[in-house]
């Protein structure tokens, strides 16, 4: 299963017909096919990496929230504990699965029972067989037939269940807030759920802190930490002070990255530069581009303020610029701008081609007040 396209109405404060197209749009060179794209069916390419960039409060997080919303429906067939209102949100989700293109439409509302769950109303699933010869019109209405009602489900469960059948992780969303001391509990859960070996775990620890030789879980809140000098029993709160929250978040994110690469689910990271040294971001991107490592079609999706990271992207169609003008909209660097591909993307940001520069006058106003 791979998500191909989503369009939403009434989602957070987005403009209507807010959409993200995950199908490769621009010319595909042989180098792109080797490193930038993954072929999920004959001549059907999606991205290895996707980036959302924009000013503060421009809506980058909203864009990845929408993707997370789709992956929750496609993976767990439910939406719960999201930090936004479900009421009247209309979704149209296209995905590829087992030789077919599916279109799923629904309008959400909030469950009246306690707990933050969505109810799926007015649901429809359409399907058409994927043909290489028709891959230019994948999203076109032509060829789709509505699937008959396949059974009855609780109203908080999406009928996508009838197509995909089994709950599975389609993506993990790591937001910019971090999980504090709970990070270690999540970390060990991830190691066990995704069968990540101790050798990989120790290797990741060494990348972030060469003094640590091992961390072992004793129970939910206590850990055994071995450094080059000593062995300590520490609580999760003490551990986060000993290792720093940056190291803690970094170790968790690298573990989630390994899980994503090994299991073929997508990894969504909000504000990637908050968690890492730039070299570690570059390394992550290069691992997703390496077919020897990324054998199961995982995609790295992230938001960033750091435009230099985009110079690591060979293409433009996998970069979106978020803009807020009362409502949030997304522009695609390939579809909505004419940027010569050989130009450095970071330079275009510094030249404010995408209208993403920090407001200079406001910066000077502050400086004047501090003078």
């Amino acid at each position, binding site marked *: 299963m791979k998500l191909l396209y989503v369009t939403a109405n009434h989602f957070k404060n987005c403009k209507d017909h807010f959409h993200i197209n995950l199908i490769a749009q621009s010319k595909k060179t042989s180098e792109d*096919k*080797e490193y930038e794209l993954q072929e999920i069916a004959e001549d059907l390419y999606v991205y290895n990496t996707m980036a959302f960039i924009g000013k503060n409060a421009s809506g980058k997080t909203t864009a990845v929230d929408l993707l997370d919303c789709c992956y929750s429906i496609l993976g767990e067939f439910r939406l719960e504990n999201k930090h936004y209102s479900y009421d009247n949100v209309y979704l149209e989700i296209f995905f590829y699965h087992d030789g077919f293109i599916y279109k799923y439409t629904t309008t959400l509302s909030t469950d009246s029972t306690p707990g933050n769950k969505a109810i799926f109303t007015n649901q429809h699933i359409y399907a058409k067989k994927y043909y290489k010869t028709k891959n230019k019109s994948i999203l076109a209405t032509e060829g789709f037939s509505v699937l008959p009602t396949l059974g009855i489900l609780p109203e908080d469960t999406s009928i996508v269940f009838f197509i995909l059948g089994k709950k599975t992780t389609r993506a993990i969303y790591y937001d910019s807030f971090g999980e504090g001391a709970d990070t270690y509990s999540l970390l060990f859960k991830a190691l066990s759920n995704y069968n990540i070996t101790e050798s990989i775990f120790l290797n990741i620890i060494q990348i972030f802190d060469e003094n640590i030789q091992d961390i072992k879980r004793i129970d939910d809140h206590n850990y055994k930490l071995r450094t080059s000098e000593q062995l300590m029993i520490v609580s999760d709160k003490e551990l986060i002070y000993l290792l720093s929250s940056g190291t803690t978040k970094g170790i968790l994110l690298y573990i989630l990255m390994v899980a994503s690469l090994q299991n073929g689910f997508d990894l969504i990271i909000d504000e990637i530069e908050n968690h890492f040294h730039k070299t570690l971001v*570059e390394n992550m991107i290069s691992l997703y581009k390496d077919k020897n490592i990324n054998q199961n079609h995982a995609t790295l999706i992230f938001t960033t303020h750091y435009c230099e990271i985009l110079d690591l992207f060979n293409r433009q169609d996998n970069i979106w610029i978020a803009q807020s003008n009362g409502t949030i909209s997304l522009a695609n660097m390939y579809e909505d701008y004419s940027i010569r591909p050989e130009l450095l993307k970071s330079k275009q940001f510094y030249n404010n081609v995408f209208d993403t520069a920090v407001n200079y006058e406001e910066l000077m106003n502050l400086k004047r007040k501090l003078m």
Partner: protein
Amino acid sequence: MKYLIMCEGPNELEIINILLRHDCLKFTRDDLLGLSAYHARQIKSSTIVKTNLNLYPGSVNILRVGDKLSERLVVPSEYQTKVISIDKYCTKPELEMLLIISEGLTADYEKVKSKEKPKIFAKKNIKYGRHSYKNDTAFYTEYYGNNPHLLVESIQEYHRIKGSHKKDEHYLAELLK
């Protein structure tokens, strides 16, 4: 020091990957920048090569693999101190010469070589199982993937029969163990 292998096309990359997988080369993945060979014509336009050059603090010897490699490799200024040498490893006039040699069709190709490129000749005359050659990487994987000895022999034979490379054009055979 690491080797940075830059292959002109995906087929050359697959040939190098098969040789690496079967330990037929003078070096192993551990000797390669980022543990991989790359499909890249120029450094400037290859984000994967630039990323891996950024990650590695040491120096690199660049090994270019391709047909003729007549295009000059430009090393961007930020990497000039990192690059110790650049060498070309050619399969002239086209990589398909290896398939022609493997099929024992060298003499037949010699008769038509003035009017037919190896690629066209291979498309007309070379099959593996039920698949005709179509200039696709998968063909090389199927053809040589489980038969690296045939690939090694063909590379050596190419060196024997094609003694006319220019001084700066090395032979793939020189990279074999």
